[in-house]
């Protein structure tokens, strides 16, 4: 990409310079003194920007992932081949919180570049006002081909702010070899099972002088990751979706129980440092073979998994264990949006449509995992055959997905999520009593959202598919969960 850009600028600037010099020379000799000076001044000035091929700038989250980056470079090259439009890729910080901050700075400062932004599933509400409405540029049929809930998630005040390109969910990674070694035939179905298995395996492995071996690693760092994890724990226990039906649902026994259990893991089956783990830390431990179980994203590590330290036949993935209420898996995923300030909205929209196109999605998922945003593709037999983990992922999405309440809370979601993961982190790290913390959190969330708290126990009635949440008007009121997404790892495509 960079080299093509160089060529184009080189090609255009040189003849132009020559032309301007010629002009200067011509005027110099034709005119008198005054016109000579004018011409000399003109010649010194830099020529206007070239009008040749358009170069778009794309900013994406997953630049630290080599596999993903290589794949996307191929896609962008293909896009350039098809359209003649050049694309430059910008990197992004690791964490979702930091990334969002960058995105907001760029968009709210009116920067003309980047043209195209990768938008996490929880961000449309935050960024929508500086994003272009894609509806005029994208045929209705194309919009309709995506999952309606995703389109809904990306539609803010009737404006289609982003076009979805990948769905992500939380999964349980486990070591088949170790499970077999300790006599387990299947992955744990409940959190309790997981706890027991992890404890046993950990003890067994440590007895084999693997002092740094842990049973279960997950993302406990003070970040959006905690929101995603805690939502899964809370929801699986029937503790609600944080904000549900315009009510704050955090302060209930189910949620408290779920969080207290997680707090118990810290230092027992999970390392004490897990409260500082982001997705990459968990993955680092896992990949080093130092953990029996890991919670992570479906799209995260397939690239790494294929080339990682752990042989493919020694691990597998499964849906996250269920609590007392259900299996819950936080929905992640990514869409692509066009900056309102872009100089090339038409070309940018072309790029967005290209990245979200069925064949591109298909080709991408075949190589590096993730889930299509187009239901049609789930009928493609080739796709299922290509990715051995895909069926698990699809099943998890279809059955267990829970949404973070970003759609309901819109711009308020970051503050809401921050309050939530801080509270959870207190429970995890400082071992504070969950119920006390949650009651404080409830008050805080009510202040942030202006919503009322749900009656204790109200969370249990959740069960409904997240699609239903979509009907709730967003803005300041509607609670809806969109999972925070870890920066680096959960690269979409």
């Amino acid at each position, binding site marked *: 990409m960079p080299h093509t850009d160089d060529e184009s600028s080189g090609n255009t600037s040189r003849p132009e310079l020559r032309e301007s010099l010629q002009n200067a020379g011509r005027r110099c000799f034709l005119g008198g003194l005054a016109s000579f000076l004018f011409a000399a001044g003109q010649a010194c000035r830099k020529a206007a920007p070239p009008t040749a091929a358009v170069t778009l700038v794309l900013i994406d989250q997953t630049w630290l992932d080599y596999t993903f980056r290589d794949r996307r470079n191929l896609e962008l090259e293909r896009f350039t081949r098809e359209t003649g439009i050049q694309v430059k890729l910008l990197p992004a910080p690791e964490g979702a919180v930091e990334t969002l901050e*960058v995105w907001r700075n760029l968009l709210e400062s009116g920067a003309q570049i980047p043209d195209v932004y990768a938008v996490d599933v929880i961000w449309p509400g935050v960024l929508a006002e500086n994003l272009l409405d894609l509806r005029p540029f994208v045929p209705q049929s194309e919009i309709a081909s995506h999952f309606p809930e995703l389109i809904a998630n990306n539609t803010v005040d009737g404006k289609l702010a982003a076009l979805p390109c990948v769905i992500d969910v939380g999964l349980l990674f486990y070591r088949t070899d170790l499970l077999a070694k300790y006599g387990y035939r299947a992955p744990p179905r409940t959190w309790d099972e997981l706890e027991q298995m992890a404890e046993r395996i950990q003890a067994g492995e440590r007895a084999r002088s693997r002092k740094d071996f842990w049973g279960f690693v997950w993302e406990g760092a003070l970040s959006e990751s905690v929101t995603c994890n805690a939502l899964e724990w809370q929801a699986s226990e029937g503790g609600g979706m944080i904000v549900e039906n315009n009510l704050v649902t955090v302060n209930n026994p189910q949620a408290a129980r779920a969080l207290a259990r997680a707090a118990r893991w810290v230092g027992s089956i999970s390392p004490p*440092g897990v409260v*500082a783990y982001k997705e990459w830390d968990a993955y680092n431990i896992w990949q*080093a073979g130092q953990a029996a179980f890991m919670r992570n994203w479906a799209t995260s590590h397939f690239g790494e998994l294929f080339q990682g330290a752990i042989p493919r036949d020694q691990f597998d993935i499964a849906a996250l264990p269920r609590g007392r209420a259900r299996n819950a898996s936080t929905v992640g995923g990514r869409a692509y949006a066009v900056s309102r300030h872009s100089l090339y909205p038409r070309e940018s929209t072309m790029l967005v449509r290209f990245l979200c196109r069925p064949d591109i999605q298909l080709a991408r998922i075949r190589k590096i995992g993730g889930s299509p945003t187009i239901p049609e593709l789930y009928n493609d037999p080739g796709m299922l055959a290509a990715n051995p983990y895909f069926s698990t992922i699809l099943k998890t999405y279809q059955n267990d997905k829970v949404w973070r309440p970003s759609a309901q809370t819109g711009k308020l979601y970051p503050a809401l999520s921050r309050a939530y993961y801080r509270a959870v982190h207190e429970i995890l790290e400082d071992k504070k009593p969950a119920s006390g913390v949650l009651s404080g959190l409830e008050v805080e969330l009510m202040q942030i959202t202006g919503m009322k708290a749900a009656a204790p126990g109200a969370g249990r009635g959740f069960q409904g598919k997240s699609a239903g949440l979509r009907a709730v008007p967003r803005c300041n009121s509607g609670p809806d969960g969109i999972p925070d997404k870890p920066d680096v790892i959960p690269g979409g495509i």
Partner: protein
Amino acid sequence: MTSAALNVNSASPSGPGNHFRLGEWKIGTLLTVCFATIVVLMVLGDIITLSQFNRVEQRASRFYQADQKSLAIMHVYLDVVTFRETLTSLAQDQNPGEFTSQATSLRDNFLKDVALAQQSLSSAQEASQDPTILNRVETVRSALPPQVDTMLELVKAGDWQAVRFRLAGQVPPLIGLSSSLVADVEKQVGEERAQALEGIQRAQRQLYVVLPLTGVVILIMAAMLGWYATHRISGPLAQLDAAAQALARGEFEYKVAVDGRDELADLGRAFNYAAEQLHKLYDVIKRSEAYLSEAQRLSHTGSFGWQVASGSVYWSAETFRIFEVEPEAQLHLDAVMQRVHPEDRWNVRQIIDSAAREKKDFDLEHRLLMPGGLVKHVRAVGHPSFKNESASLEFVGVITDITERKRAENALQRSQFYIKEGQRVARMGSWAYDPGGFFEYWSEELFQIYGLDPHKGAPTLEQYLAVIHPQDRESMAEVIKAMLLERCGCDVKKRILRSDGELRYIRCVGIPVVEADALKGFLGTAIDVTEQEQLEQERERLRQLEAELAHTNRVSMLGEMAASLAHELKQPLAAAITSANSCIEWLAHEPPNLERARAAAARIDKYGNRAAEIIDHIRSLYRKSPSQREPVNVNEIVHEIFPLLQSEASRYSIAMRLELADGLPRIEADRVQLQQVFMNLMLNAIEAMQDTGGELAVTSRLQEGQPLFAVSDTGMGLPEGIADQIFSAFFTTKPQGSGMGLAISRSIVESHGGRLWATANDGRGATFYFTLPAHPL
């Protein structure tokens, strides 16, 4: 000047068409405006120059900024690398305190550097700058602190393993990103540098074009303004100048065409008026001067004035012509002196200086040396003029070219000198005689010849005759009388008796000068021929002496041969007597044999004649007759002499032999003298052999067209070493010899143009040879 004059000349026929283009402005105003404009132009040029320099400076600062960018981003990169390496090493040590403080300080340092980088990158936001660079820097900036936070969290939790994994796995991409940034920025900066450099170079090139061009344009405009102003002033001035020159040349008709209202136009009008007045005045002067000049020209006389104090010299036109100097307003005496011939210079200077000192007239002649080497003679006459006595003494005078006169004088002097010298060498004088009876002219040499004093002038006729030898005086008087009477010339030789007693022979030749039938006088020459005369007389005396000597020689020879001659005579006489006896007998014969008697008588006659012949020969030798030259056959002479010597030879038993060549040419000679030569040589030979006997041979032959005669003997030969002395007079080896024989013989032969010499024979004796030039008959 010249072109201006030409302009005026070409314009003058058109008269008023030639005018000042002065417009409405006065010249002062015009000049002020011009200078003000030039100042403005220079200020403009300065502004342009400064702006150009400013442009170059801007380019340079961009160059510097580019470097700043590169440096700043490099710092960021190094921060990240240091971050990872330091923390990795600390993670091994597992010292939470150290790790935390280092990580925090590294992060702060990093943030500071990133801020600097962002500042320098965004401060020089270029159109060409890769727009993603700032974004990427921002990404790096926002990516590292969370890493630190995360790691610090992990450290706090004591999870060094996770820290190490993170340092190994998640920081490298940051390093990669930073290094890609460094590379991109470096590339970018390289381009910017190149652009800045190109900008600088372009600005410099423009500087090189703009500055000189500005300078040139300003110079040209200033020059044009200057030219215009100058033209407006110099044009009229040139016309005024031309007019003034015309005036100086005397072209008073010339008018400056006046147009406009400025100062120069006023000047022009004033000038025209002045010229008109001058014209009138000048006409008067010119006329009188023309006369004077013409007079000077005709007389080759120029006038001059010389101011002694200043040395200034004023000349008339003719003086300039004489000195061949281009007429010039100011002359200085020193310059004039340069023309004076170097040999005369000092002299001239002396004279005029002394004249100036004493305030007296001077009159001198001297030479001038012209540049081409030509020499002129001039006469300068000066008279001190005391117009204003006090200060300046001035000489006025005339210079006359007297070269022609001098040349004529010189030529005359030279020819007179030649004549005089010629006369002296030839001892010849010239004279002119007036019919009135007195000498008009005597040349100097003539005075010398006659021993008279030139200073007393030509002598009177009486004085002249008094010098003449008394014996010739009368005849000379007769000659003069006859000349006057018959108007004829003369050619006489006379003797004079000079007052110093010396006798001289003078040949005097004169011719009458007749003009229109009237005798104007005589002129002629007188040549001192004394030496020739004396020589002639001496020669005559010598001839006589020789003849005497030769006669004496002959007589003495005959005396020596008397016995032989008697014998010689006796033979024919005896034969004649015998024949006479026979005749008598034959007549007495019975019958008288007349036939035989006649024969005998004939014989008597013959012998008698023979004897007479001999006597004649002897007589001729005795005779003292003047030299008579006639063509002679020398062989005959030998035959005549031969018998005379035969008896003498036989007396001493000497055989004589003749070998005479036939066909010898006749020779113009004196027969008797040649006989004497042969006799001398043959007697000489006989004497040489008289004691011994021998052979005497006389031969003749023709050699190289000349008859060569030789008389050789077999006698005692020539005395050793003195072969040639034998021909000297009074030289003899014989007791009885007079010593004159051979000397006389040689004298005779040489007087006939021949030569006589002697050589010793190979065997014995000597041979005497002589040649005689063949006389062409």
